[in-house]
């Protein structure tokens, strides 16, 4: 400390800064830059709001589509486990043969459970549910076959089990109702690809929007940049406030997008619950969650930063003191 005092008292030359001093003032400058970036944003509220809204909408669209696809695929995941194989037994099979078939089915690998539905109970259930009860009274004999319901452990095993069961002697027909599940899966695949394409396109849009906003900011601060360069400001020093602005725009956009998504979820919650109620389901839509929110912030922040970086790289070089 004594040495520093000496130097300034003599007032001879600009002093050489120590490492810690540099680091401290570096941190100080980062804080100060962040503060002025926020203030600059507030000083032009309309322009800032427009930029933030454009970013928010561009982030909300793919994020909403993504959440839609994820919710539907969760729904189909719930259906997966209830995929059952219906095994219809040939007419006239006697009880000992049925018992043997049941044992055979239970012995297959990958089978979780086997339940027996007698022809009579199937008919009773059909009478009760279909509403044709009185008409069915006129039938001479029960047209329905004896049946087993086989529950596979894994959905992926279902087709193999169907093939094995079909080979058994007493089996008349085997049905696995999974075609619609495969179609849904294919649709979800298309949905996911669409989300990605939309996200990339709109992400590029956000980069352009942030880039343009930063370009205007650079132009309006041309004098300041010129002077800073003349008094020995490094490129990094000149760049820093604009990068902070870009980052802030991206983060604010992501925040607004999260609010929009939450409102959308809130708005849809009631009708979805009604729809689920019609299917006797407890299903409710799931939102972004904390992890999703962080990812959204990360994407918004990086896209803003990239936009600012590109604009700064392109325009700062052009500003030359004269």
């Amino acid at each position, binding site marked *: 400390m004594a040495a520093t005092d000496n130097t300034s008292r003599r007032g001879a030359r600009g002093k050489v800064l120590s490492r810690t001093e540099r680091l401290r003032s570096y941190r100080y400058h980062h804080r100060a830059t962040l503060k002025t970036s926020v203030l600059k944003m507030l000083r032009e509220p309309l322009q800032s709001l427009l930029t933030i809204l454009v970013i928010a909408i561009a982030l909300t669209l793919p994020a909403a589509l993504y959440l839609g696809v994820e919710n539907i695929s969760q729904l189909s995941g719930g259906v997966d486990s209830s995929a059952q194989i219906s095994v219809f037994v040939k007419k006239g099979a006697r009880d000992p043969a049925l018992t043997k078939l049941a044992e055979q089915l239970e012995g297959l690998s990958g089978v979780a459970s086997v339940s027996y539905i007698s022809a009579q109970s199937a008919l009773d259930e059909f009478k009760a549910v279909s509403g044709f009860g009185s008409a069915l009274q006129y039938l001479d004999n029960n047209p329905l076959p004896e049946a087993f319901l086989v529950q596979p452990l894994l959905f992926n095993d279902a087709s193999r089990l169907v093939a094995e069961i079909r080979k058994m002697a007493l089996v008349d027909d085997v049905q696995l109702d999974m075609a619609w599940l495969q179609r849904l899966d294919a649709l979800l695949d298309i949905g996911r690809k669409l989300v990605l394409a939309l996200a990339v396109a709109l992400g590029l849009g956000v980069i352009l929007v942030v880039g343009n906003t930063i370009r205007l900011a650079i132009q309006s601060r041309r004098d300041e940049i010129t002077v*800073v360069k003349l*008094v020995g400001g490094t490129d990094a020093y000149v760049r820093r406030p604009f990068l902070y602005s870009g980052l802030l725009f991206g983060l604010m956009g992501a925040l607004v997008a999260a609010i929009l998504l939450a409102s959308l979820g809130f708005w849809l919650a009631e009708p979805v619950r009604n729809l689920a109620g019609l299917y006797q389901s407890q299903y409710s839509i799931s939102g972004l969650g904390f992890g999703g929110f962080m990812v959204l912030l990360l994407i918004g922040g990086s896209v803003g930063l990239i936009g600012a970086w590109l604009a700064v790289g392109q325009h700062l070089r052009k500003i030359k003191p004269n």
Partner: protein
Amino acid sequence: MIRFDNLSKRYEGGYEALRNVSFEMDAGEMAFLTGHSGAGKSTLLKLLMLIERPTSGNLLINGKNLNRLPHAKVPFYRRQVGVVFQNHQLLFDRTVFDNVALPLQVAGYSHADIGRRVRAALDSVGLLDRERQNPIALSGGEQQRVGVARAVVHKPKILLADEPTGNLDPQLSAEIMALFKRFQDVGVTVLVATHDIDLINRMNMRIMRLNQGQMEQDGISYGGY
């Protein structure tokens, strides 16, 4: 301190602003650079600030050849140089204090250090009581003095001035020149570009005269007018 070694500058389009200019300035020396507009005064100062690079010849500062200085090192070189502009280049979106503080902020001085040095610089130009004002509220002479304070706040080894009295009346001009003389007295190398003949005749100092890009005259005694 400053050495121009057969330096030429040709701009794109073929205009030759400086032709084989050679001169030397010792540390702590003060000199005037004069000549008609278009004679190359501004170009010479731009070369010294590394805003422009020479087409041929060598420019040495403190024995170091600036031609070999990479782009990334230019800011650090500029921190050893103070510049006063004709249009003073003050920023009207901040106070006088913040204008003068800029070279220190850029170089990463601590908050307390900046306060002390800025006040010392403002004191030396007699504007300590104006630190909180916006420079737009000051008179032309005061604005130029703020510009001088900003140019010397980081205690540069070299002080350059491009027509620093261009817009000022004779008395204010003399005040600014007296300021420069004071910095020379504490060891700063001072180079002032001006066409204010009356002023420099009264100062009795080294004068370098450029004519169409060439060094026409270099000496203490001033003749020819």
